[in-house]
């Protein structure tokens, strides 16, 4: 773990210089505000642009405050994950390609601190964005729809954060292993498409990391079967550790592929 602090500072400076520290939280906040506001004005929007015949009464579903947070999570599961995966696919692989990694590999730094510094910094950035986005959404929901108890929201966010950490670990481990194009394809497959597949055909098993987001919404609704959840959380933590070890190993093995 030599040089972990220094590498963490380097990562921090990099996230500032390429503006990721600014635009990723901003985008999540915008989506967090948009979701409750559009749901609140949906009847009026449909009235003005929906081209409905005179006198038609459409029974709008009454949204409970918690439904809004769940549908915001649905947004983050599609657009949010897409942004996270695409923004960080090059975290390690493009450093190899551009030759920045050469400057690091010639110094006496361990691969584990190299990988872990990236893992820590990117997770901190992404979790911060997701939390701020949900806080903005929570505030607007409580203003427009009704309040949600803070303890429920915190439990929901904690469960969802574990899934986000898992997704970031996948992207980083792949980035250490493959060139950028391969990371994009496999990363999107392992996060978004697997989540969809798991919800379509995954009725036969209950313990997979891809069910974490569904379980997070169950926790929010108060209908979670906790033994199942703890098994899932345990498996996810185990897989995250495996991904970190794999990423560290691959960062070392691919060191020779660096452009000099």
């Amino acid at each position, binding site marked *: 773990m030599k040089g972990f602090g220094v590498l963490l500072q380097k990562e921090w400076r990099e996230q500032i210089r*390429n*503006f*990721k520290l*600014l*635009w990723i939280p*901003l*985008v999540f*906040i*915008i989506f967090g*505000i*948009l979701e409750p*506001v559009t749901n*609140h004005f949906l009847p009026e929007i449909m009235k003005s642009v929906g081209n409905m015949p005179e006198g038609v009464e459409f029974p709008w579903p009454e949204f409970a405050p918690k439904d809004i947070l769940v549908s915001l999570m649905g947004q983050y599961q599609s657009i949010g994950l897409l*942004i996270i995966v*695409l*923004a960080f696919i*090059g975290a390690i692989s*493009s450093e190899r390609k*551009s030759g920045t990694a050469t400057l690091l590999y010639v110094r006496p730094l361990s691969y584990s601190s190299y990988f872990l510094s990236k893992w820590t910094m990117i997770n901190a950035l992404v979790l911060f964005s997701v939390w701020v986005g949900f806080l903005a959404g929570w505030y*607007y929901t409580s203003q*427009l729809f009704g309040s949600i108890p803070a303890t429920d929201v915190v439990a929901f966010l904690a469960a969802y954060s574990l899934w986000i950490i898992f997704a970031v670990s996948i992207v980083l481990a792949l980035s250490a292993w493959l060139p950028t194009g391969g990371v994009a394809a496999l990363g999107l497959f392992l996060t978004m498409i697997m989540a969809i597949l798991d919800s379509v055909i995954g009725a036969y098993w209950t313990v997979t990391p891809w069910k974490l987001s569904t379980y997070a919404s169950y926790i929010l609704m108060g209908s979670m079967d906790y033994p199942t959840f703890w098994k899932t959380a345990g498996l996810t933590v185990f897989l995250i550790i495996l991904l970190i070890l794999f990423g560290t190993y691959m960062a070392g093995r691919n060191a020779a592929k660096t452009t000099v």
Partner: protein
Amino acid sequence: MSVLADIPWNLILPILGLQLILMLVALIDLIRNQRTNGPFIMWIFIIILLNIVGPILYFIFGRRQS
């Protein structure tokens, strides 16, 4: 004018403000960097004309990391 007054500005303004900040950050970065994947002018139009999505596209695909 009554149409304008009917819009709940206190709800809409934060969204517009954040979108404007996002757009300005992307534009400032584009003008300072100058080097993009694809034509420079095209990215200016994408950032200004596409709400929210434009700046995201620029930061992910248009920005050349160096």
